[in-house]
């Protein structure tokens, strides 16, 4: 765990040194905000204020959103062929609040959340998620309201939750995925099927879609692993990776 916390600290420092004006967080809702009543494949949070759910006793917070950036990105993505939904009141669950607690504990950065469905079919293929990232990058570059934008993708790696195998972690799968991701083997990543993800990484591995969005946005130039640990306390194969930006 010490290595994981140290990696969080390193990422936090790296983020601070980059001096972004806003932070886009790619994550997956866990039946907190979205349900079978409505579950868009991709959703961007457009509110000026973003409430967190505070589940698992984490406490509720009100984070700053950035409507002007969110609206610009939303419009550009739709015009680029991605039917992203927009939510004026998108509450954020632990997929967002946990990483943000480590990266921006003082809530110093306004946040634009982007949700990607990861375990309620039909699921977007990993290639589609990486393509979304590419379109997101272009959208960021085309808007002129916000200067520097950082992007964080959260989720995975292997974890089984809500099922009889809960608690299982698969380091072999995790390390294999990390190797592919670090060298940006997009062909291999794009071809990872849902069956493989679920069989080898658990239903939670579907969240790796967020990683593919970030990789696409960064230009698929590789990544540097800061830490990987199978963390039993979090029942998750946990890794922090910094992505090279083209």
């Amino acid at each position, binding site marked *: 765990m010490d290595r994981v916390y140290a990696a969080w600290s390193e990422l936090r420092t790296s983020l601070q040194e980059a001096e972004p004006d806003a932070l886009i967080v790619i994550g997956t809702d*866990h*039946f*907190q905000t979205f*349900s079978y009543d409505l579950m868009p494949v991709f959703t961007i949070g457009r509110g000026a204020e973003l409430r967190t759910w505070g589940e698992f006793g984490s406490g509720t917070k009100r984070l700053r959103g950035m409507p002007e950036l969110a609206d610009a990105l939303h419009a550009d993505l739709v015009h680029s062929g991605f039917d992203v939904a927009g939510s004026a009141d998108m509450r954020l669950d632990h997929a967002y609040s946990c990483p943000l607690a480590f990266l921006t504990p003082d809530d110093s950065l306004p946040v634009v959340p982007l949700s990607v469905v990861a375990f309620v079919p039909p699921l977007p293929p990993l290639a589609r998620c990486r393509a979304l990232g590419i379109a997101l990058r272009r959208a960021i570059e085309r808007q002129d309201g916000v200067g520097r934008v950082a992007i964080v993708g959260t989720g995975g790696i292997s974890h089984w*939750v809500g*099922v*009889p195998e809960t608690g299982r972690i698969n380091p072999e799968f995790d390390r294999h995925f990390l190797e592919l991701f670090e060298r940006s083997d997009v062909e291999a990543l794009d071809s990872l099927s849902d069956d493989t993800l679920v069989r080898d990484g658990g239903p939670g591995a579907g969240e790796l879609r967020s990683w593919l969005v970030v990789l696409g946005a960064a230009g698929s130039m590789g990544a540097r692993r800061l830490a990987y640990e199978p963390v039993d306390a979090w029942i998750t194969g946990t890794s922090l990776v910094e992505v090279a930006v083209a």
Partner: protein
Amino acid sequence: MSLLDLQRAIYHLSTAGEQAGQATDPATALSRLIELSRSEVLAELPAIQLQLELDPHESELIERGDVAGMYRYGVHPNLIRNFAGVFGIDYLACYREAGL
């Protein structure tokens, strides 16, 4: 009377915030949710109308907090996890006990 309505009920029970927190048992929480869904007040607000139709078996799964039964019925595991978290149910222990 469907897996969908069961899952919708579980979702609302798990995310009702203060309402879920005040009700320490699933049966009371479900009773309140059903009452709310039939509220004449909500009938005036079509945008947030909640219509639930649960058969006796589905209602019983919730009232008894029968997470193993929910799993066998096909409820999404993440919904079960959330429900179990709100009502303090050790779903893994329940699964083991049920032979899952």
